[in-house]
């Protein structure tokens, strides 16, 4: 059952209908049944479920034991959990070692891992609000809305809404519908159109007979930009759908995107893109790592440089997490390198200009625009690892050459520096115009206007779906 299918929407409608009881216990059972049905719908044979279920089930005793376990208990649980994850994900470096001899479901495993580690660490540090019942544990770790690709909700936030009765009013329901439709618009129209364009742009880049010099660099730049936008609309659209549907189930799922292309630097970018993932890495890798490093090198002057190292390691791991093959090492190195270089730049500029001077520079429109463009360009470059394998990446870099890489980077930076502010301006103008036209939602004109707009979007989605007979896959499903 794909999240963007009609079957899934009907499934959610049934879940919502059954989920509106007053009793929290009843709602938990309904939700557990929904989660079970969703997961079972992803497989065709029962054994294919076994590894995932075992992985989830073994996490529960660990979460219950850790509050009273000795310090090494957490290390043991984390090593076993991450080890099992690496085996089940069939990482390429294992070269088939310990591989299970039958096909099984690995969908959602990464996000289940994030939730389990969160529960284990917080259980040991005593930050979990109370002992978790098996049913609540299953519902949290296998929440069907977040199962495939997040968002990664924290357990206390999940528990807080799970105990509250679902209160729906007209405004909330309309907002939820509008959010879901917007998600479909992003996935089925924008991301599908960009996917089509990318499909036209990328094959000549990977063909044996490459285009000539400048044309290759331009085609590469165009493909990198289009893929980045495609990924954004694909992933953020998916998030809109699950967050909107979650709202009808009384869940306040966390946001995963906040205008990422408005970011002025790479570190800022990761506070706006896949927010719950970067928050998770900040909490469970960056902070403990920096604390450990600070404990080892007890010199306040070294702290900024230790932060550079911690950023590098954190983003390296974040990149590695995205896939199981060698090209994701390159992706991790690019992300880690980007984050470390960003931090180093900030340190250097602060040292050279002083805090106030650097802040003043950062506010200059030209500098700000170029930084924004460079951030977009760097991320688009890094994302190339998601559409090629290592050999193809090597081929692309060889064909581009150092001059081609520099020219492509400069081209995307300059184009983004010019286009992104123009898009901002257009959006602000449109919003202002819409606000000027706005009438009270309660008035007849407001009622007709907002429902007609929503219906028009649904019609657009239906029409676009008929153009693109093969809807693009949800990209993050693979991670």
């Amino acid at each position, binding site marked *: 059952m794909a999240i963007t299918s009609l079957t899934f929407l009907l499934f959610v*409608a049934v879940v*919502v*209908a059954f989920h*509106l009881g007053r009793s929290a216990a009843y709602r938990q059972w309904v939700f557990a049944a929904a989660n079970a049905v969703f997961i079972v719908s992803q497989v065709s044979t029962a054994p294919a479920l076994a590894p995932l279920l075992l992985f989830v089930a073994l996490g529960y005793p660990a979460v219950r034991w850790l509050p009273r376990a000795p310090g090494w208990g957490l290390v043991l649980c984390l090593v076993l959990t991450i080890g099992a994850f690496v085996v089940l994900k069939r990482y390429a470096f294992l070269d088939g070692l310990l591989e299970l001899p039958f096909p099984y479901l690995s969908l959602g495993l990464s996000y289940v891992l994030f939730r389990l580690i969160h529960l284990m660490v917080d259980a040991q540090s005593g930050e979990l609000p109370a002992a978790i019942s098996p049913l609540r544990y299953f519902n949290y770790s296998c929440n069907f809305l977040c199962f495939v690709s997040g968002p990664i909700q924290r357990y206390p936030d999940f528990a807080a809404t799970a105990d509250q009765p679902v209160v*729906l*009013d*007209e405004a909330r*329901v*309309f907002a939820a*519908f509008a959010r879901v439709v917007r998600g479909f618009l992003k996935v089925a129209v924008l991301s599908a159109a960009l996917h089509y364009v990318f*499909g036209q742009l990328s094959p000549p880049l990977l063909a044996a007979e490459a285009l000539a010099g400048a044309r290759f660099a331009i085609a590469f730049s165009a493909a990198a930009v289009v893929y980045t936008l495609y990924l954004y609309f694909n992933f953020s659209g998916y998030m809109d759908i699950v967050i909107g549907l979650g709202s*009808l189930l009384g869940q306040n799922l966390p946001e995963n995107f906040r205008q990422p292309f408005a970011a002025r630097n790479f570190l800022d970018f990761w506070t706006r893109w896949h927010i719950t993932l970067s928050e998770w890495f900040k909490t469970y890798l960056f902070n403990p790592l920096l604390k450990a490093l600070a404990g080892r090198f007890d010199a306040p002057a070294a702290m900024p440089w230790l932060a550079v190292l911690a950023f590098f390691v954190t983003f390296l791991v974040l990149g590695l997490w995205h896939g199981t093959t060698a090209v994701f090492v390159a992706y991790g190195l690019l992300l880690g390198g980007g984050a470390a270089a960003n931090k180093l730049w900030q340190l250097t500029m602060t040292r050279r200009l002083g805090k106030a001077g650097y802040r003043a520079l950062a506010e200059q429109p030209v500098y700000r625009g170029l930084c924004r463009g460079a951030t977009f360009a760097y991320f688009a470059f890094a994302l190339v690892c998601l559409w090629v394998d290592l050999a193809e990446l090597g081929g692309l870099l060889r064909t581009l050459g150092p001059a081609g890489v520099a020219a492509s980077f400069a081209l995307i930076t300059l184009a983004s520096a010019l286009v992104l502010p123009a898009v901002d301006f257009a959006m602000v103008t449109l919003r202002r115009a819409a606000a000027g036209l706005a009438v009270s939602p309660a008035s007849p004109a407001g009622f007709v206007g907002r*429902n*007609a707009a*929503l*219906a*028009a979007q*649904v*019609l657009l989605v*239906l*029409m676009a779906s*008929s*153009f693109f*007979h*093969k809807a693009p896959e949800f990209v993050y499903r693979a991670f």
Partner: protein
Amino acid sequence: MTIILRQSAILLLFLLLLYGLALAVAVPIMSPPAETNLDTAAAARSPFMTEPKYAFLSRSRLDTGDDKAILLGASNVLAGFRPARLQQLVPQATVHNLAIGGANMTEVRQMVDLVLEVQSPAAQRRNLFVIGAWYGLFADDRARWHTPDRHPGDTDLDIERYRYGFYRRTDDGPVALLPPRWLDAGVTLIKPFLLVDRLARDIGKALRPARAVAAPADQVPVPGVERQAQYLAFWQDYMGGSGRLEAAPFATLVQTIATIRASGGRVLLVDLPLPRWHASGSPYEASYRQHWAGLQQQLAGTDGVAFLSLSDADRPEDFSDEVHPKPRVAEGWARRLAGVLNDAPGHLARR
């Protein structure tokens, strides 16, 4: 729940209102093709725009009680047999060309099934399917239909079946959601989709840089050795690279003939020519000849099945590329086909 149901109903109502408006605009603009002879080559000028869509959505016009010669195959059938000219030569029957560029035997089989499903038994008995064969028609499904741009195994006709929800994808293949007798109503209902598709294609065409004007097909010279090698390499890749044809597509052809015969229709199998340099340079041609001889032997004497060989028309200068005959040659092909159609026993015979 009441609020959710209410909002769903409101959204549905607005959607229906908007769609009603879209229908009111699209129906008068997107009128169906008026020609007597269905011709997928005319798809670009029709509301259906592409050959598979044209063949899939216009086939209900074949549910008639007159004699029909229905031509099926790939693009060389389209180029070689122009239905308007054939119609003049075969006045007793209505000639339709539903060939689809790039079709293989699986797609031809599907087209036969799609035609039969919209016809009454009486109309089915007046069918004569003309199937144009050459080695490319027997391309393996794995090589032909397992490409990244489609669900594995979907033919171009399958894509049209699913595109508007007329069929549902199942593990056992497509299942009709729209009863075949409602096809025309379905086509009317999707006219807003067709209109938007038409507009998108026209805008896309206007935005694309103009291509250099190609020489008229009749004036194209015989390709040089290097170009010939490129053509041969293309077909080697297109066919899957093994250098020989599998038996399965030929078995599909035999099954297709059996289906047509069971419905009371007849079949004419036309062995289409290739330019000499192509036939002698491709390993698939030899494999095709071998299977074809076996097929002729197997079907010899079968009632309602006839063969016509055009393989002698293989002069390189008669082709505009490696497969397609020049327009001037199509006249000769049409006359030879008309000769057989007019001599065919039964309803098609000249009275």
